[in-house]
């Protein structure tokens, strides 16, 4: 079945080649290039289903995008201007009507305004900064201009391309769902990461380094030897707490904090564990607390000294990575084109009209906020995320080297909801977030006053170059498929991508039940097409799915080289496993070396 649709798509692709136009029909049309949309597009194309992926924006990622400074300014202009009744269509209504068949209606896309309360500050003062001699030396090597003039708007714009500023900054747990998905699907080949180098917490009015790894615990100067021993003992217990369930059973439903006290941990240690390791609110019960602590610990030591990874060039790379996989498997990409509307008949979406052209589909995957009201079935409570981006001249906690920091700010005492913490990341030039010497402070919060109460006290006016704040609303969705329409979330409030991946997976499972979700794409290294001498010995491998190269070439109507056949052999499934073990071994070595 999969092979049939695969070949079908190969022909479709040739049709595009011939006409320079879009085919008239796709199995799946995806509107919006947010992360969930992109994962679904990749999963469908990967299994040979024909996919058309559309976005009326001229950039990938929608609310998941990362921008250059200029790109950010353009996005702000667009968000300020965007009204609820924005019309995408540029074609004459009459022309569009002619594309409809009997009984069909054309539903224009909705454009719910989700970004509001944008406030922007350029803090630059007209003071000349002195040039340090080591910076001067850097100048020759670096592509980043040395700071001599204040960072005015003009100067930020002139250095625009040195910025990758995220609309939705996220960290990845090293053993979290995104890392696992990237590895198992081989989408990891399009991504690079930096390890978060330190976990910070706000304690007694100061920022402190949270000791998380064994090495950290032993080297830290902030806690006593007795505390070190207590902490190590407790963390070791948490790693395998399931083995001691009999002992802790009575405490499981009681508050986690009480349990920590019972374990004789000191207030400082309890603060570290609650806020920075488990990252749970005070109200959480022991079972949840242990689970969260274990999640943190399980991700330690895989890639670095903290459990977290930061995507190089920003979160915006991730939807693009899935889009690339989708394109490699035949997905068609069509950005910055007006989407005139969705063709609807008898509770089913028939297709879409894009750029004045009608394209039919069996399934529509669409961002909720773009989906016409008539096709939305559920209405859930709106959630609000408060976002800040601050560009800083120096780190919130200076260090000898450039650090990539993660700071969890606890929720205020009175909020008892499950997610009252705020996630703060500070990234610098090493992660390509901003020019050398500058830091980008990213704040994500569910509370409107986080900046005033928690973040501002960490900063000095001199330190600030630029501040941007906005508010974004989203709805959480429970239903995965309604008729033949699947709705995608805007980013929900989370640290990693667990919910986004789970929702994308559910949508895919509902559309193509029983199919593999993003099976491993063949390693390009398995298709070695080197010198004759090498080719003769090397065996070209391929995956069971997609089909063999022969099947692919069979669709090449005008093939002039009928002898073209690649030596092939199904590789051991062990390959992936060995990669993982090598990888972790390499990292262990790296860790030991340091």
């Amino acid at each position, binding site marked *: 079945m999969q092979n049939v649709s*695969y070949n079908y798509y*190969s022909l479709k692709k040739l049709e*595009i*080649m011939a006409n320079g136009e879009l085919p008239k029909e796709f199995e799946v049309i995806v509107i919006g290039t947010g992360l969930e949309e992109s994962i679904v597009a990749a999963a469908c194309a990967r299994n040979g289903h024909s996919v058309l992926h559309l976005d009326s924006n001229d950039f990938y990622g929608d609310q998941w995008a990362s921008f250059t400074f200029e790109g950010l300014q353009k996005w702000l202009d667009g968000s300020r201007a965007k009204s609820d009744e924005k019309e995408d269509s540029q074609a004459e209504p009459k022309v569009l009507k002619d594309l409809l068949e009997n009984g069909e209606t054309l539903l224009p896309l909705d454009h719910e305004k989700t970004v509001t309360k944008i406030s922007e500050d350029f803090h630059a003062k007209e003071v000349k900064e002195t040039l340090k001699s080591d910076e001067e030396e850097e100048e020759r090597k670096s592509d980043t201009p040395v700071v001599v003039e204040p960072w005015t708007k003009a100067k930020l714009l002139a250095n625009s391309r040195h910025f990758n500023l995220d609309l939705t900054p996220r960290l990845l747990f090293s053993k979290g769902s995104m890392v696992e998905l990237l590895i198992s699907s081989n989408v990891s080949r399009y991504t690079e990461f930096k*390890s978060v180098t330190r976990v910070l917490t706000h304690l007694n009015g100061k920022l402190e380094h949270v000791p998380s790894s064994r090495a950290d615990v032993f080297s830290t100067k902030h806690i006593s030897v007795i505390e070190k021993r207590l902490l190590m003992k407790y963390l070791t217990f948490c790693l395998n707490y399931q083995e001691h369930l009999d002992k802790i059973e009575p405490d499981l439903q009681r508050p986690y904090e009480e349990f920590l006290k019972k374990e004789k941990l000191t207030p400082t240690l309890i603060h570290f564990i609650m806020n920075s390791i488990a990252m749970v609110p005070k109200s959480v019960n022991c079972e949840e607390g242990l689970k969260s602590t274990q999640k943190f610990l399980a991700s330690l030591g895989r890639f670095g000294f903290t459990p977290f990874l930061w995507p190089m060039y920003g979160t915006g790379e991730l939807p693009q990575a899935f889009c690339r996989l989708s394109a490699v498997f035949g997905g068609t990409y069509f*950005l910055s084109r007006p989407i005139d509307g969705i063709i609807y008949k008898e509770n089913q979406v028939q297709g879409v009209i894009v750029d004045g052209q009608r394209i039919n589909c069996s399934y529509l995957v669409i961002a909720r906020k773009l989906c016409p009201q008539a096709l939305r079935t559920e209405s859930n409570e709106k959630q609000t995320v408060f976002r800040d981006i601050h560009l800083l001249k120096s780190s919130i906690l200076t260090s000898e080297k450039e650090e990539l920091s993660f700071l969890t700010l606890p929720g205020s005492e009175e909020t008892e909801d499950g997610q009252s913490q705020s996630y703060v990341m500070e990234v610098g030039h090493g992660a390509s977030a901003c020019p050398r010497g500058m830091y980008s402070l990213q704040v994500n919060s569910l509370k409107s006053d986080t900046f005033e109460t928690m973040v501002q006290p960490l900063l000095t006016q001199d330190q600030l170059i630029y501040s941007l704040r906005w508010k974004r609303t989203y709805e959480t969705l429970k239903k995965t498929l309604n008729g033949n329409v699947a709705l995608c979330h805007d980013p929900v409030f989370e640290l990693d991508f667990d919910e986004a991946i789970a929702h994308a997976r559910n949508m895919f499972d509902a559309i193509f039940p029983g199919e593999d979700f993003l099976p491993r794409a063949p390693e390009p290294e398995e298709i070695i*097409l080197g010198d004759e001498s090498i080719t003769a010995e090397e065996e070209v491998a391929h995956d069971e799915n997609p089909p063999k190269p022969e099947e692919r070439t069979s669709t090449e109507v005008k093939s002039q080289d009928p002898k073209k056949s690649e030596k092939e052999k199904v590789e051991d499934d062990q390959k992936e496993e060995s990669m993982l073990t090598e990888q972790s071994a390499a990292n262990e070595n790296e860790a030991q070396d340091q």
Partner: protein
Amino acid sequence: MATMEDYKYLFKVVLVGNAGVGKTCLVRRFTQGMFPPGQGATIGVDFMIKTVEVEGEKIKLQIWDTAGQERFRSITQSYYRSAHALILVYDVSNQPTFDVCPEWLREIEEYASPKVLKVLVGNKIDRDDREIPTEVGEEFSNRHGMYFLETSAKGSENVERLFSDIAHELLQQSKNREIPSYDANSQQILQTGAGHTSSLNQRCCPRS
């Protein structure tokens, strides 16, 4: 596995240019030694690999194609990240594919490393309906600090030379420590060393 392979350098080479200028054909001609007439076969193939020997060093070239995203000008910017060399291809018998080169350059300058080795390639010189004279392409490349070559993927003219010159140039840069030399023992993916950056560190000089 990549970790066990016998090469000392790994370079990422990325192709751009309008649809139909022969990007995939150039890669296939170079990596497989043949001229492919149809392109449905590129499905599932992400990038091609060929190991070449320059000055006695084994160099692995990882050559990335656009996966069709150029057709509607929808290339992901992440495609340009970490490229060591960028080949901008036009069709010498098709004026519009040359006229659009400044637009491609703008995209390259926005997203690729500023030090990426840029190569302008006029392909399909086997055709007798040439519209862009060699001097015009050469002049454009000089103006934009690009290396220039005319090729025929069909007749294989200059195809080997194109990639071996790129390998040669990147090797020189790498030996001069101008760009990070990839350690064959490290993983390309999920590479997370705190000191790891993938961008090039020095502007390369155009050759002619």
